[in-house]
């Protein structure tokens, strides 16, 4: 893990990762109108991160910091999702009530639709990618210790 892989892998990774991330963001952004969504897109985002780490390697102290960061990011994204879900609760409309859908319905099938759902998808996407990154770093760090 310290040294990374050969120059071929590094070049391909450099070429591929922007597209992988772009695709992940696309999946997250279109989660409310097509198959996919926060989880699937988040997996793509984390996959790009894993590819970079595998290709270029990383230092142990950096891994520890990024694990802490990802762990916090995961909790914060979920907390934001929870806050969005409980807005309806505070306004006596019930848990996960979709407020924006009433005031800003948008066009069906268009990306600006679904009220709160795209935003919730975004939070879930960040949460999932951070969670997968935590899992990957945790396993990778354990390997380093031996």
């Amino acid at each position, binding site marked *: 893990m310290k040294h990374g892989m050969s120059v071929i892998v590094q070049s391909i990774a450099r070429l591929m990762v922007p597209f992988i991330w772009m695709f992940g963001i696309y999946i997250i952004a279109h989660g409310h*109108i097509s*198959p996919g969504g926060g*989880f*699937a897109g988040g997996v793509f985002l984390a996959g790009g991160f894993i590819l970079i780490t595998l290709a270029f390697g990383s230092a142990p102290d950096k891994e520890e910091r990024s694990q802490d960061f990802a762990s916090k990011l995961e909790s914060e994204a979920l907390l934001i999702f929870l806050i969005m879900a409980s807005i309806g609760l505070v306004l006596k409309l019930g848990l996960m009530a979709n407020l924006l859908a009433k005031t800003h319905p948008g066009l*069906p099938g268009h990306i600006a639709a679904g009220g709160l759902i795209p935003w919730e998808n975004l939070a879930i996407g960040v949460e999932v990618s951070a969670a997968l990154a935590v*899992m990957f770093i945790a396993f990778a760090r*354990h390997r380093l210790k*031996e």
Partner: protein
Amino acid sequence: MTLYLLTFILFAVGLYGVWTKRHLIRIILGLVIMETAMNLFLILVGYREDGVAPIITENSSNTAVMVDPIPQALVLTAIVIGLATTALLLAFSVRIYAKYQTLDLNKIRNLRG
């Protein structure tokens, strides 16, 4: 019907692996196979002959020819749960390996029944 039978057989294979194998990774694989069989079964439950993706747009709003979306949502959730359990099991087997230097259950089981 053949497809249903195949998922049942896959499920049985996973169950067999979990109950008879004595190697931690193989047990985890058995669980993953069971889970996959279950996901396939759920997808089959929602399948309709010649069905299309269940998305209502201006062009296609005939719900009669769409596959059932609920099992697909269930499968997605089940996959997420399966990811978490598998990762946890693997993390535990890593730790057990660090303690015993082996993954063979016959060598590490020192707990009494």
